[in-house]
């Protein structure tokens, strides 16, 4: 439906995520419209975390427009996230992608009933686990210094660049730059891959985005969070002298570990 005056009075139901039969306390939690209470719609042992939204803001046409306004997006995604974080304190939760709205609770209930078995098993696999994000930032000049200081071939080229006559020295310097660049990229990729492997070893599931520097997500059981942090400290300590910095975010609702497609 297009946004228009007719939408103004109409309400829809924004869905944040799905949970099992245990309903967490949500008494003082407000939804993405900034005012409406967040509540749970339960059907056959599966619950949806929901709040009412006005369709003049969240209707099809309006939503499309609002998504082009960064301050609006920031406020709404932060609220979506904080609602789920609140729920995740007490229950395993399947986070929904931003912007899923139903016109009636009956439609939502029938969805929960239809997909019940898949949802129940997905929730079971997530129980007691949280998502953590790790990003590796590479300070290339520092890593280059480390390579130059520890690599025999680089040392030889550096020596040539210093001692040879001007013409040869120039070529040695160029060769050194290229060589160090390659070594830096290879070393960053190798260290990041190794860090990912070690972190993934204590996670139930792990994913990483393509690219040399690490951007990974890890689904870690609460019982192994201490191990995960210890490993992160270790890879951080190993990476620090050569210009690698590891950043941790989380805990997140398990966005990166839920089926992203509808059946």
């Amino acid at each position, binding site marked *: 439906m297009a946004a228009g005056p007719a939408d103004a009075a109409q309400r*829809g139901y924004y*869905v944040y*995520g*799905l949970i099992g039969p245990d309903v967490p306390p949500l008494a003082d939690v407000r939804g993405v419209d900034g005012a409406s209470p967040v509540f749970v719609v339960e059907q056959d042992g599966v619950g949806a975390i929901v709040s009412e939204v006005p*369709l003049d803001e*969240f*209707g*099809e046409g309006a*939503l*499309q427009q609002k*998504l*082009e306004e*960064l301050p609006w*997006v*920031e406020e709404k*995604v*932060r609220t*979506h*996230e904080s609602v789920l974080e609140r729920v995740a304190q007490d229950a395993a939760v*399947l*986070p*929904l*992608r*931003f*912007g*899923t*709205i*139903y*016109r*009636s609770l009956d*439609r939502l209930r029938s*969805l929960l009933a239809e*997909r019940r078995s898949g949802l129940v098993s997905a929730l079971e696999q997530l129980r007691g686990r949280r998502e953590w*994000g790790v990003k590796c930032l590479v300070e290339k000049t520092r890593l280059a210094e480390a390579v130059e200081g520890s690599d025999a071939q680089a040392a030889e080229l550096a020596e040539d660049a210093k001692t040879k006559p001007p013409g040869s020295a120039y070529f040695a310097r160029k060769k050194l730059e290229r060589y160090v660049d390659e070594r830096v990229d290879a070393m960053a990729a190798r260290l990041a891959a190794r860090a990912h492997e070690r972190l993934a070893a204590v996670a139930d599931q792990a994913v990483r985005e393509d690219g040399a520097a690490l951007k990974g997500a890890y689904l870690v059981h609460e019982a192994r969070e201490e191990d995960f*942090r210890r490993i*992160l*400290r270790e890879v*951080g*300590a190993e*990476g*620090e002298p050569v210009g690698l*910095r*590891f*950043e*941790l*975010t*989380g*805990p*997140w609702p398990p*966005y*990166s570990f*839920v*089926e*992203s*497609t*509808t059946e």
Partner: protein
Amino acid sequence: MTTTELPAERSITLVELVDRLLDKGVVVSGDITIAVADIDLIHLGLRALLSSVETMERNP
């Protein structure tokens, strides 16, 4: 990196948030959802915008 230098875990950057909420999470057939093609574009647009903001913050 020592324990005290661990980055503040709760200081969630908007980039991380947008990467998860607009690109991941369960997709269900709501009555109103953002079409996949549209959400990809929105996500990329926000990413580009936020990356430039982030770069500016890191290199003042």
